[in-house]
């Protein structure tokens, strides 16, 4: 579908728009459900009035102070992971090319664990995670650079870094005393419990800047998926686009990990799920971000309610999502 106004023209895929709208509705539904349920159930109409600041004091307290920060953090972190995954899957031309496997999430974990063991506050841990992620990314990029960074080399160097960092992480865990190890271990599974607005704000800021950037580079990135030479022949500055995309992807997964811990597999599953829903060739940025948001908040809701009153860390559920996703990939799909 093409809309033309004078010399301007914009291409829209109706199905993608429809899927996007459906995902937004779904995200709203999950949000309301998460705000309404829990130890104390707030009726849905009260939730809505509370959200707009017109509710009863009790409802506003529970919805606004206790539950909203967690849900909003979940939405933002999910979107950031989804978008980051979309970027790396496009760059590596591989549905498994997720930041979880090429060292970035592991690097964020290393930074986080060091902060935990050093007894840092929540903010220090977040800062450590972001720093760990960025340092890892710079090293991986530098090591993979050889007159340009090719997707496969990025993957392989990243896998090497991933192995090294996982070992460093477990070394840190074995050296720590049992209490530190347990709390670092809990952080490592990824969790949204106790997240406040301080956690949500950096992610929101990162998304506000990086979502437009990602959308802008998504067109040349789609060309790079056809091979470096083909893209260069079309006039794309392949290395520049790739560097911008990697930077965006790394920052997104870094801030997301800083906020919620290394919640793996959202970045893996969201882009492919979105792709299948929109039936578009290649990954799509916006739909991946929305899918990530829905996946993570839904997983968090399930983690809270599935075995209530026992609260599971959301990472356990996303690991299950990851397993299911791999199983789905095993089915040779032809459309």
């Amino acid at each position, binding site marked *: 579908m093409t809309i033309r106004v004078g010399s301007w023209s914009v291409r829209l895929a109706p199905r993608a728009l429809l899927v996007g709208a459906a995902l937004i509705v779904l995200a709203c539904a999950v949000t309301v459900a998460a705000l309404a349920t829990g130890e104390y159930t707030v009726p849905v109409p009260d939730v809505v009035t509370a959200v707009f600041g017109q509710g009863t004091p009790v409802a506003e307290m529970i919805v606004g102070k206790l539950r909203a920060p967690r849900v909003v953090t979940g939405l933002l972190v999910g979107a950031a992971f989804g978008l980051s995954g979309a970027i790396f899957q496009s760059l*590596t031309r*591989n*549905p*498994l*090319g*997720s930041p*979880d*496997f090429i060292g970035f999430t592991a690097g964020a974990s290393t930074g986080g664990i060091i902060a935990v063991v050093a007894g840092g506050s929540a903010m220090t841990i977040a800062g450590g995670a972001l720093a760990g992620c960025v340092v890892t990314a710079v090293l991986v990029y530098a*090591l*993979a650079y*050889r007159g340009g960074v*090719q997707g*496969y*080399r990025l*993957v*392989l*160097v990243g*896998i*090497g*870094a*991933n*192995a*090294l960092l*996982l*070992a*460093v992480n*477990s*070394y840190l*865990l*074995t050296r720590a005393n*049992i209490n530190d*190890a*347990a709390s670092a*271990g*809990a952080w*490592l*599974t990824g969790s949204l419990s106790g997240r406040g607005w301080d956690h949500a704000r950096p992610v929101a800021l990162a998304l506000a800047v990086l979502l437009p950037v990602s959308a802008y580079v998504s067109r040349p990135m789609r060309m790079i998926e056809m091979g470096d030479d083909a893209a260069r022949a079309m006039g794309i500055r392949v290395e520049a686009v790739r560097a911008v995309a990697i930077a965006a992807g790394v920052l997104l997964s870094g801030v997301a990990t800083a906020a919620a811990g290394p919640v*793996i*597999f959202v970045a*893996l599953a969201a882009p492919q799920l979105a792709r299948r829903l929109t039936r578009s060739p290649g990954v799509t940025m916006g739909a991946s971000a929305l899918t990530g948001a829905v996946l993570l908040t839904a997983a968090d809701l399930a983690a809270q309610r599935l075995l209530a009153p026992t609260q599971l*860390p959301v*990472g*356990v559920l996303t*690991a*299950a999502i*990851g*397993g299911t996703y*791999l199983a789905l*990939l*095993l*089915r*040779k799909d032809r459309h």
Partner: protein
Amino acid sequence: MRPAEETAVPVAGAGGDAGAARDRRGRPAILATGLVVAVGVLALTAMASVALGARGVSFGTVIDAFLAPDGSNDHTVIRELRVPRTLLGIGVGATLGLAGALMQSLTRNPLADPGLLGINEGAALGVTLALGLFGLSDPAVYVWFAFGGAALASAAVYALASSGRSGSSPVRLTLAGVAFGMVCTAIASAILRMDSQTFDRMRFWLTGSLAGQTADTLVRLAPFMAAGLVLGLMLARPLNTLALGDDAGKALGVAVNRTRILTGVAVTLLCGAATAAAGPLWFVGLIVPHAVRAVVGPDQRWVLPYSALAAPVLLLAADVAGRLIARPGEVQVGIVWAVIGPPIFIMLARRRRVAAL
């Protein structure tokens, strides 16, 4: 991977033929001597592994501990801890080295490794299930869970890597392995998180460690390791032929599917037993066969036994290093390897050739 030596085309040109023929007659003798030397080196490393550690012991004391044990502290440490640990290291090293060589040959993938491709993680998940969930503590019992996990992992990773239309490539296979391994690890740690006692006991094992296993574990696992080693070494000839490609292999009379399945069985036995003994270890199976091929050439009849002998040497050396650098504590051998391994892996990955495969 290069074609096997026995089917390689001799160097053309006058004089070259005679030289090549002489070389080929001389080479097996040299290589066989090399194997004997390798056994000697392994024995020396084993001696060092028994003698060195948080508390250094003289070689004289080591010999006394065997010939005339007097129940002293040193002798007890040697007989009860160091010797089983060293023997375990030899078993685990040999199995992983051979498993890596078999996998690299079968998948024609220079980056194949039991740890990287998720097979050890699959086995570890099996062991975690057995120990953490069902409380089965007999190694000869939970090793079957390790086999199940390893077999599932090899099948799943292979299928994952070749599920795309473009077929399997080293990068795809490696990614699939890492992805599957991460899922296994995530599930395993979720299980452990439910039970902090098991978590504390198993977190060292999950990193890959030769410490903390008794002589009994070794005895219970040894038959499985031996079976895997024998089966794996017997596959050298068909694998040599399969290195030329499935079609060429078939044309030369290899039962391609049977060879694949038998190799899969051998890899499962080797990785399952090794992981049950020492936890999921990475990179041993990757790097040793590479180094071996650089020395002895592409003939699997030599690559496989050399890998099985060289890997325990390096594993024990890393284990001893881990004991020495952090005295009086120690660094798990899995961590030592995970620090040595990645730089070498990255070096291999940066080679242009990998992309072309």
